[in-house]
């Protein structure tokens, strides 16, 4: 039995079919007999989520804060699970943890972000970060993060991810204490007397020529260069068939890059409509934007993973990482294809020098270290603690 060190971080995974058992197994591995302050749970919607959370609770004790999200695949040192669970746990006197959850109202998604950010209140540690676990299907990811940023300001970095429900696009869930919420934002304000590092990288590149979004509404694109958006996607991918065939057999996720000062702001399209010839993803695509279709090869994506981990570790003032939370875009998983995910996990293990990590495949990532925008797509965001 380990004593309780000043700061510690552990990770665990389980593929057990029984939800309570899976939660308990992963949590037990993560805490390793220590008393955690916070437990982060990433689980598939295939599980009985309340049962899974009770399983976790039984292991971690009554005082630990539980937060987390449902996924499109769970990540950890052991590799990828689909339909499984991954748990990260941290504790020790060096960490302070506050949490807050807020419901997302359709009329004011920003308010939810701002409310979740209130978890930072009263946190006075030397190093702070706000970790957000958000519903992935509200259609307003940017507003949620803007709401959080407007409350937090530029002094505290933001990280996190938008939840997924495997590939159903129906409903995602957030974990907050013993509750399983939906359409919510959960904020984990983490304070530490040790350094915190954040890494952000993707591995996609533009396919010329760019196009103008000539008609869009929210996350729906109707016209690209005045041509029905679905027609454009099918033509440029040399695909003949319906929207469903395209998104399920051709390109499961079609990345789109918006022209930005330092490159692209990426959106992922995951569905289309044969009738209206429109396509959509999970985030706003502003009318008037200049966009590129994006592509990647496996090596570029793997290099991105290495870079994200290396960047996060580089910010730990030379200290060895205790552990890492990873928010990896589901679009990357699709891009990596069969076998590539195992390679990505191997790359991450190497880059993190064997430090424990847990994470999930998201429908959108959050990272704001500089500048003001915090929503990413097709990106691996890593949060390293030392």
């Amino acid at each position, binding site marked *: 039995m380990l004593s309780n060190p000043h700061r510690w971080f552990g990770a665990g995974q389980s593929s057990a079919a029984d939800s309570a058992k899976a939660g308990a197994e992963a949590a037990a591995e993560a805490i390793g007999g220590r008393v955690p302050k916070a437990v982060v749970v990433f689980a598939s919607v295939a599980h009985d989520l309340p049962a899974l959370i009770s399983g976790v609770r039984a292991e971690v004790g009554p005082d630990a804060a539980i937060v987390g999200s449902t996924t499109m695949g769970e990540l950890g040192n052991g590799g990828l699970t689909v339909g499984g669970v991954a748990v990260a746990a941290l504790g020790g006197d060096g960490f302070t943890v506050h949490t807050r959850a807020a419901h997302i109202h359709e009329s004011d998604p920003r308010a939810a972000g701002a409310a979740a950010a209130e978890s930072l209140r009263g946190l006075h540690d030397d190093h702070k970060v706000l970790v957000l676990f958000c519903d992935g299907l509200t259609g307003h990811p940017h507003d949620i993060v803007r709401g959080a940023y407007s409350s937090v300001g*530029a002094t505290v970095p933001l990280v996190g991810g938008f939840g997924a429900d495997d590939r159903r696009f129906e409903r995602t869930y957030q974990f907050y204490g013993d509750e399983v919420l939906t359409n919510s934002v959960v904020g984990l304000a983490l304070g530490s007397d040790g350094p915190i590092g954040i890494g952000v990288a993707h591995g996609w590149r533009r396919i010329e020529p760019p196009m103008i979004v*000539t008609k869009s509404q929210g996350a729906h694109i109707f016209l690209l260069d005045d041509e029905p958006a679905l027609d454009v996607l099918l033509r440029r991918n040399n695909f003949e068939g319906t929207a469903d065939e395209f998104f399920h057999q051709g390109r499961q996720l079609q990345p789109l890059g918006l022209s930005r000062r330092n490159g692209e702001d990426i959106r992922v399209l995951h569905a289309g409509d044969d009738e209206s010839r429109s396509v959509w993803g999970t985030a706003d695509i502003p009318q008037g934007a200049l966009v590129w279709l994006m592509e990647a090869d496996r090596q570029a994506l793997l290099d991105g993973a290495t870079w994200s981990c290396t960047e996060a570790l580089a910010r730990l003032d030379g200290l060895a990482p205790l552990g890492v939370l990873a928010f990896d875009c589901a679009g990357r998983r699709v891009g990596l294809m069969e076998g590539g995910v195992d390679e990505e996990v191997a790359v991450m293990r190497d880059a993190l020098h064997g430090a424990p990590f847990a994470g999930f495949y998201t429908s959108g990532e959050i990272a704001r270290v500089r500048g003001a925008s915090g929503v990413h797509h097709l990106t691996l965001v890593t949060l390293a603690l030392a």
Partner: protein
Amino acid sequence: MMNWSTHLLTEFFTAVNAAEDEQTAISNAVERATEMVEAEVGAVVREGKVLGAYGFGPAVPEAGLLAVATGDCLLEVAGLGELHAAPNPLGGEQADALIVARLNEPFGPEERQMLQGMAQVLGLALRSIRVLAAERHLRAEKEQQATSAQTRQRLVESLLTIQRAISARRPLPEILDAVTSGACELLDGVKVALLLAEGGPDRRLSVASTSGGTDGEPQPEGAARAAMASGTVVIRPDATGTVIAAPVRVTGEMAGCLVAHLSGSVDQYTEQRDQMDAFAQQVSLALTDAKTVEAVREAHHDPVTGLPNRALFLKILNRVLSSRGTSADPTSVLFIDLDRFKAVNDSLGHEAGDQLLALVARRLRGCVRASDTTARLGGDEFAALLHDSPMEAATIVGERVVSAIKEPFRVAGREIFIGASVGIAISREDAEKSETLLHNADVAMYRAKKDGPGRVLVYEPYMHVEALDHLSLRGDLQRALREGEFRLQYQPLIRLGDGMPTGVEALIRWHSPTRGFVSPVDFIPIAEEFGLIVDIGQWVLETSALQVARWRREFPDLGLNVNVSGHQLMHPRFSDTVLRALAIAGLPSSAVTLELTESVLMSEPDLGKAALGTLRGLGVQLSIDDFGTGYSSLAYLRELPVDELKIDRAFIARAELTGEDLALVRTIVELAQILGLRTVAEGIENAAQLEALRRLGCGYGQGYHLCRPTDAEELPSRLLTQLVEYR
């Protein structure tokens, strides 16, 4: 590379215009602007209050933001430190501004321009929201709202059209037409013109595109100039209504004006004024984007050589001049002009030309100290700024430059020989202007060049007078051509074997009513420089062809030699114009020999090959003038359809030819014989020379000893005399 900022402005526009109340418009604007330039914080200052503060967290530095609105460019933010701030006026009367601030990196000119555009858009939206709110109380509420919303929608749509034209890389004129027709549509079909300032000191305004209205309406240039001078939108009455003029900038610099002419009175058009202003901002960005190539030029470095450009050079020079401690440490400016560069560029192509310029730049850098500045002023002109360099030191550097450039360059797989002329100006007074200094160096360079290539000269005030003269000479030349001040003299070519005149060379003469007699040596280079040579050359050809055709009735075998400049040869219709002139005159092409200088042919071996080939095919003959003075190459003698070599007078100029002279001439003559070419010796001035040349086997000759250049009316009698003497 596409310009990211232009596209963001349209996104921004859409986001801000979607807002229905002021608060939403402000927070949308602040958030988008902050994100788009990757700033950390942003806010709006309006009527003395801070609104929409973003990214500050709980503690908003209100005093700091108000200070930024009035011009501070640093903003202290608790927990972050000092940020670079950019205040962007919302338009209107007060110091209202959209502010963004960023850690680490100040805002570049392009970002500032985009932010200015965003602020204008926000200002416009806020004013129209306020107008709407006020008008809600009026009966016409519904109708007005609909119109205003429609107008805004139309604005968005036409901006999208322009955007598409830019992103699809349509040609610039098409983009400009999209701009004016968009503005015209927005203003219900009134006449809209886009006036762009041309380069040069007087910045003439030219109409780049128009839409709407009828052609007869006057060009409101006055309003355009006022808007450009003030940098703000101008609305004023004119004879038939109202003119709105909104300035257009390119990369931050005033480039022109978008002008609309409306039929009503000034007070009706407040909204239209704002719309034109917002539209002009968009145009500014569109032009900045579409003119990427020119933008590179306007940036501070020359893309070909990587050297500072003229603007940056002048800036540096200004700084050096103003920071100079005393007049005792002189600053020197070298103006370097390449000789024969144009020929390389025209014959080997621009790519080779650019390569050559890059190599020249490298050599130039090697000629000066690391602390000195070299720059490319444009074309084949370079400059160097030497710190603490008195005249002697600067002259040494100038000579070093000349000899460095004289060494052959290897470009496109061949050796290229060019040269450089250098003018030097040295600052004498404390308060010398950078432009003046550079101009003086230019004048000195011009003077140096006049004395022949490869010279270095230091500026003296008298040169200025000469330079002025040079400029006025251009005007005089134009007039001379127009008013018929040129005339021709003819100098016979004599067959040395029997003294028989076989042809005449047409020689141009200019007696200027103001200048008196001006030698071709002085005015031909200027005619070439200003592009007048093509017209002058054509006149010479037409006139002499008619003349010789007339003489041939009496002297049936008489040939005509005409000098042709490289500029004429490059003219795409050169062969056509020659043939046309001969046809009109009724002179057979076989009677005509075109004389080209060796340097033209040598430096531009591919130049006009096709034209020469065509002419040769039709029987026109080709002669190489001044043979032996250039960089003789046997290769082109084989490649080009040459019929005749004229041995330069320099080889036979001595009253008594030395053994060396004779050896050279003999070589040329033998060479010509091997290749089956005629040889003509120029400048034969005495009997000894004539005898020597005859003995060497030179076929033909020209010179005062044989026959002076003669006016047309006297020539027949001269020819007869010659024939009589021969007999």
